[in-house]
């Protein structure tokens, strides 16, 4: 199957519906928040599919599409990271974040996992390594800033 076809499979409307149902139940989202979550996740999934459709038309070897998908993987991976920080820095202060924040983190992580279904195993390892190196750089910069009293 083409990469474009694979993306339509992994981000299908049915899968999206199942994901929202599962996440909404897990974090006990109300109807309004569930609708908000569905809208947000559907927008991301549609963005991926629109990218696939547009690029695939003139990208016979799928190089541009695969490269773009890697970019989207980073985008979603860091969106999850931001929500994860929010959730856990709140938790250590004894505060519980809104269920919608938990739902966003969970659903974004699932979109990351879906994208990984079309990314080669060896490439997934390299991407994880890149995230580690970026994190190490961010920590290094933050520690250097703290040392000079920034």
């Amino acid at each position, binding site marked *: 199957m083409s990469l474009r076809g694979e993306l339509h499979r992994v981000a299908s409307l049915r899968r999206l519906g199942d994901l929202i149902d*599962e996440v909404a139940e897990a974090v006990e989202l109300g109807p309004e928040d569930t609708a908000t979550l569905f809208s947000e996740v559907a927008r991301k999934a549609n963005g991926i599919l629109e990218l696939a459709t547009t690029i695939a038309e003139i990208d016979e070897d799928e190089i541009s599409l695969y490269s773009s998908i890697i970019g989207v993987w980073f985008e979603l991976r860091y969106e999850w990271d931001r*929500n994860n920080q929010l959730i856990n820095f709140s*938790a250590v202060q004894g505060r519980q974040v809104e269920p919608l924040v938990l739902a966003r*983190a*969970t659903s974004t992580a*699932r979109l*990351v996992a879906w994208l990984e279904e079309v990314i080669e195993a060896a490439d997934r390892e390299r991407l*994880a390594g890149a995230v*580690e190196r970026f*994190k190490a750089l961010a920590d290094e910069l933050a520690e250097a800033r703290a040392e000079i009293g920034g």
Partner: protein
Amino acid sequence: MSFVPASIKTRLASLDQDSADREPFGIVKVDDSGTIEIYNRWEAEMAGVEQDRAVGKNFFTQIAPCTNNRLVFGKFRKGVEAGELDETVNYTFTYKMKPTNVVLHLFHDRGSKSNWVFVQKRAA
């Protein structure tokens, strides 16, 4: 107050994979860099990660990347460096699993010079 019974803490030097698998909470033994040496059944089932796949990987960066921050990995590194680590942290796992509230207990066993991450579910 930790959820880890004293009976476990006192026999960490000899705690192997089979013994860890029998415990009703998560037990992860890691080296000083965080590389997993023991990953027990409870933890594997809770995280949805196969035990064979976890051993040899870094717990904080590869298996539970949500812990790759100052709250957890930072405390672990500081504790290992100081040779003294006995910290509990309320945490929520969200990466590729249902949101799960847990208590993490990071522990360095001086006797066996080994490092442990214990995990127990907690109410929200």
